[in-house]
């Protein structure tokens, strides 16, 4: 019995140690800058590629918190994050007007797509307007999985329902209250339609969904980087990150991201350089 306990403790220690080591090396001389971003940015894998490079070039250490756009802005307002990468233009403008940020710059955009079951009960495949497609989904009362959170994607969804002249609700309208990846999985399992950013749709595995509507003018998703108002070393790093991610070299990098894995880029770079 004693042997078992010793063995268990050893295994536990072995599992814990690398993690602890990681924690320590993460907190460099510059402390830790917190980047609050949206779950869809995180899910796309873009930051996993960019951040290590930024940390190496700047000496800053960045910790990413992936939340809804609503919470990201709230974290900024409370001073719990130094830099934000978000995509809720209207909420962002309100945030800037409230005096909580020192700068807001366009970084990139990707587009939303409407995905759904292959048999397409609402017959929306190939439509060019998302609002019209939403109208058909509501009319057919086909299952629709909604984020129903404070994400930029949900804000977009609501504006599409409004444009379609529909007040969504009823048994066909499933509200998940969760991130994009989870909602896509639920849509796939329930064979429901949903609105997703293209990146997360392509990056989420094991989905039994088809891309049905894309390219519409009403399906654009714009990302901005906001430096939160405040002082200190972490704020300097935040400013540096904002300058870095909008620099020509990194903008080129963003424009190429995803080609290798998905055969097409996930984002279009937007900064002027």
């Amino acid at each position, binding site marked *: 019995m004693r042997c078992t306990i010793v063995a268990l403790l050893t295994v536990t220690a072995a599992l814990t140690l690398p993690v602890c080591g990681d924690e320590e090396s993460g907190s460099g001389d510059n402390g830790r800058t917190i980047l609050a971003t949206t779950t869809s940015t995180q899910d796309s894998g873009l930051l996993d590629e960019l951040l290590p490079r930024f940390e190496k070039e700047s000496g800053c250490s960045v910790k990413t918190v992936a939340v809804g756009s609503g919470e990201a802005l709230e974290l900024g307002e409370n001073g719990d994050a130094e830099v934000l990468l978000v995509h809720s233009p209207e909420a962002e403008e309100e945030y800037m007007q409230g005096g909580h940020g020192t700068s807001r710059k366009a970084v990139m955009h990707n587009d939303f797509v409407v995905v759904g079951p292959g048999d397409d009960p609402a017959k929306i495949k190939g439509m060019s307007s998302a609002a019209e497609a939403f109208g058909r989904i509501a009319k057919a009362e086909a299952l629709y999985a909604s984020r129903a959170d404070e994400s930029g994607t949900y804000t977009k969804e609501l504006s599409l329902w409004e444009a379609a002249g529909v007040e969504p609700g009823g048994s066909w309208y499933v509200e998940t209250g969760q991130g994009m990846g*989870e909602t896509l999985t*639920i849509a796939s399992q329930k064979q429901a339609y949903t609105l997703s950013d293209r990146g997360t749709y392509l990056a989420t595995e094991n989905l*039994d969904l088809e891309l049905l509507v894309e390219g519409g003018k009403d399906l654009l998703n714009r990302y901005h980087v906001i430096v939160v108002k405040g002082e200190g070393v972490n704020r300097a790093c935040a400013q540096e990150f904002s300058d870095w991610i909008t620099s020509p070299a990194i903008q080129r990098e963003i424009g190429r991201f995803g080609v290798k894995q998905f055969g097409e880029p996930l984002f279009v770079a937007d900064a002027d350089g």
Partner: protein
Amino acid sequence: MDAVHEVLGRSALVSLTATAIALALGVPLGTWLALAPRRGRAALATVVNTGMAIPTVVVGLVVALLLWRSGPLGELELIYTLRGMIIAQVLIATPLIAGITMAGLQALPPELADQLRALGANTPQLVVRLWIEARVPLLAAAMAGFGHAISEVGSATIVGGNIHGQTQVMTTSIVEQVGRGDFGDALVYAAILLALAFAINALLTSVQQRAAAWARS
């Protein structure tokens, strides 16, 4: 978002049902582990004790993989339903209940079972007598099982999906509110969830303490 009493009712329904089923499975299992010959039970007892510490997300993941449309039990259409969530919570609470039952029965004087046998008790009579003797730890097992079930969020999210009006429970709803930056509502829900846990545990504790007093008198 649903009205709070709907979410609360769903939490209570799922976790109380799961605890009841887990008691029906875990108490006999723990009893067997306490009474069975040593050789056969050692491995299973270790499994049960490991199960007491199993992360709820792991249970959620495994149950979801089984229940997914493409999974082996997909045709039952239990993913994102309350019944699916109950299955997951039964798997979470059963090892706890079995483990505490086993420990409780093993803490009884070892000569007790022999004496009962010598007095002519058959196995069902013996087991019932031992359960009565161990009623204080058995109630502790029920409280631990319920406490784990009502407080867990891992499997409730993965298996239940937090679908509004259908599978949203208190814990998943708190996570969602935090995700929306709605800390005020999250705190209110947290307080209500604690109040529910407190009420049910207060009931069980009063039964337990009365049982303990009766044992001493």
